[in-house]
């Protein structure tokens, strides 16, 4: 398999604050007081971080059995701050180390809206968006970011999308966390898609803390170890895909595109084939389904490659992709830096056939974000230069 030296678009990088107060300073005063009241009168920690109710809501325990807080050891900055909070490390370890054209900042993991107090969640999302725009985007013109929204309050989410959606450095909306225990295609979430479509934005659905938690993701019962928990991650995405079809999301919003990140990809053929097999029944129950489900999926849905399902013989995974017609047009490369499940770009390039490199590392993402014109302006008509084997 060949290496790849052409331009890369990375669909998934997780940036973080150095101190929680970096984000809180963008909250309105009352909410900032709420956030920091816990720390009132107490000395700050040795690092000077303000203890608070927490930007991230609490999560299940079995997912936390991973070492090093599930982060790459090399991504821990020397000053004791958090992985993903250091732009210089990001630049050195990823942006400059490989031929990066653009990268999407997805926060870590952006599920601020999953706080059980939804009003706080709404304000946190706004503050985090402002923090990211003001503190991260200026670092590097290659950095683009998502608009984080509270899935627990779809109408508020729509407002936030409309507030920020005309910023060209924010090309997508992040769905992080299933707040209602309804799949993402459910009408309860449609205000989000309406706003995204109106503003010409794509939608990124990334693995995150769901609310209230295991009741949403843990089928068959609570997972009692990290192997069960992590290996079942794709199941939610399988349902989200079917829900987009049965609720007619792509009929209502024909310009909408959705990408699933950190759920893997090899489950996608099972859903496409399974849905096509139920075509008659599907149309009986959801009369607005007008096309084969697999066609909707081809046209509107993509998956980020990370975490790539590593078959013992690399040909295996490629064969699965080939078995599902056109699936190589649906994959977009991502690293998931600085998480422990990180996929190295050179490693992934060697696993993929050379003829898929420019699609998966570049073209499919341009299609997803509508960046074709900008790509042509930057590189002429054929941007990808494939390196030797």
């Amino acid at each position, binding site marked *: 398999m060949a290496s790849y030296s052409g331009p890369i678009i990375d669909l998934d990088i997780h940036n973080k604050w150095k101190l929680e107060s970096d984000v809180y300073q963008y909250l309105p005063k009352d909410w900032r007081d709420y956030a920091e009241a816990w720390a009132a009168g107490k000395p700050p920690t040795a690092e000077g971080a303000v203890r608070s109710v927490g930007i991230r809501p609490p999560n299940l325990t079995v997912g936390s059995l991973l070492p090093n807080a599930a982060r790459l050891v090399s991504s821990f900055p020397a000053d004791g701050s958090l992985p993903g909070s250091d732009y210089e490390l990001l630049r050195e370890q990823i942006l400059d180390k490989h031929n990066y054209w653009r990268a999407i900042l997805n926060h870590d993991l952006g599920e601020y809206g999953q706080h059980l107090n939804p009003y706080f969640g709404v304000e946190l999302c706004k503050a985090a968006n402002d923090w990211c725009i003001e503190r991260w985007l200026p670092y590097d013109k290659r950095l683009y970011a998502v608009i984080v929204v509270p899935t627990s309050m779809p109408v508020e989410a729509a407002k936030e999308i409309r507030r920020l959606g005309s910023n060209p450095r924010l090309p997508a909306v992040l769905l992080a966390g299933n707040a209602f225990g309804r799949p993402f295609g459910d009408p309860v979430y449609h205000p989000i898609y309406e706003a995204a479509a109106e503003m010409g934005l794509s939608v990124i659905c990334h693995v995150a803390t769901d609310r209230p938690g295991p009741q949403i993701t843990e089928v068959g*019962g609570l997972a009692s170890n990290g192997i069960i928990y992590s290996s079942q991650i794709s199941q939610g995405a399988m349902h989200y895909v079917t829900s987009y079809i049965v609720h007619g999301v792509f009929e209502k919003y024909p310009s909408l595109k959705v990408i699933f990140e950190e759920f893997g990809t090899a*489950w996608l053929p*099972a859903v496409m084939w399974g849905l096509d097999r139920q075509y008659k029944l599907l149309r009986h129950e959801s009369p607005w389904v007008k096309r084969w489900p697999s066609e909707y999926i081809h046209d509107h849905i993509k998956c980020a490659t990370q975490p790539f399902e590593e078959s*013992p013989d690399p040909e*295996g995974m490629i064969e*699965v992709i*080939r078995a599902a017609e056109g699936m190589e047009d649906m994959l977009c490369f991502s690293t998931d830096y600085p998480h422990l499940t990180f996929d190295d770009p050179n490693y992934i390039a060697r696993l993929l056939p050379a003829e898929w490199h420019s699609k998966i590392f570049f073209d499919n993402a341009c299609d997803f974000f509508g960046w074709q014109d900008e790509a042509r302006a930057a590189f002429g008509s054929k941007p990808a230069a494939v390196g030797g084997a």
Partner: protein
Amino acid sequence: MGVIDAGLFHEWSSTLTLTPYMEPAWAELVTRKGDRGGPLRLGTNWLYRNPMHGNKAAAAYPTKGVPGSDREMLAKRPGERLVLGYDEGLLASGFAYHYLARAAVRAANDWTVDQWLQHDPRLYGLILVSTGMPDEAAAEIRRVGKHERMVGVALGANGLGLPFGHPVYHPIYEAASELSLPLVIQVGSDAMTDQIVPPVAGGLPSTYAEFKVLGGQPSMTHAVSFITEGVFDRFPGLRVLMLGTGVAWLPGYLWRLDWWWKTNRLEAPWMQMPASDYFLKFMRITTYGFEWPRQPERLIRALKTIPNVEDLLMYASGWPNADFEDPDDVASKLPEDWRDKVMHGNSEAFFRWPGRAPAGEAAGRELATEPGA
């Protein structure tokens, strides 16, 4: 070589079919509604029902009774051996009133022996258990498992809302293993109204079509739970058949499973080999439930990425469900060199057929077929 159908469903038409097999007090409890209203239906409810035809094949309705209740009609099904499981009957195992569930499954097992196995030498049964009380389920396996035409255990409903590998369920596997009986887990085990465990991730699907596509998800979780919680390390003779779950997700799933096993191996140091090797050795999947694409060879192409995958697959018709498949339909979509194994050989190796069951683990080893052997 004759076809073995590893999964078709026999059902009782009415509670009154089973009451003769119950202790008088239980029979009285379920019938005491009197002449009006009829007896209590022995089972909880499915969360999902097929709105087009209740999920039963139109041609499978007998003149009297429900699909699957007519012995003569069922006897016309092709196959040298027919393993009788339950579709609707699984609901009895899921009744939240555990003691009633126990009474119901006892009656169902006795009825199966009396009204089915005695009458047709081609028929074999699965012991239905109520997992809500694992010790009682183990006792039922020991009670009924002596019958040589009971060839496996139908685990039925997820009675405790936990993945099936959880230690609380282990008494069931101890009993099954002792009697060399394999297990069958089925789509629907977690999709009953008397449960709070989710049957599909990401919320409840709105449509039956989605449930058909996604309903195998709990079984995927149960498989990893069996593997990582030491069930196959404690009971190496055990085998588990996944019925109706589909298979197209399997290649990527095994690779993902191994990735996490490699990373989190120290959570389960009792595992002797990679997680996917456990799957290949101990789990089987029925053809009933396959997500056949419009071009069926695409599924075969994806499956071939697993070495010796044909050793995992067992033909089951799924009759009388609406999407049942006749043997010829399935065989014609399989590569020729898979057919003997899938239509016969793998089922021959899997179930505890009469005359091949010395007690204990030796029997388990005899049953064990290494993939590719």
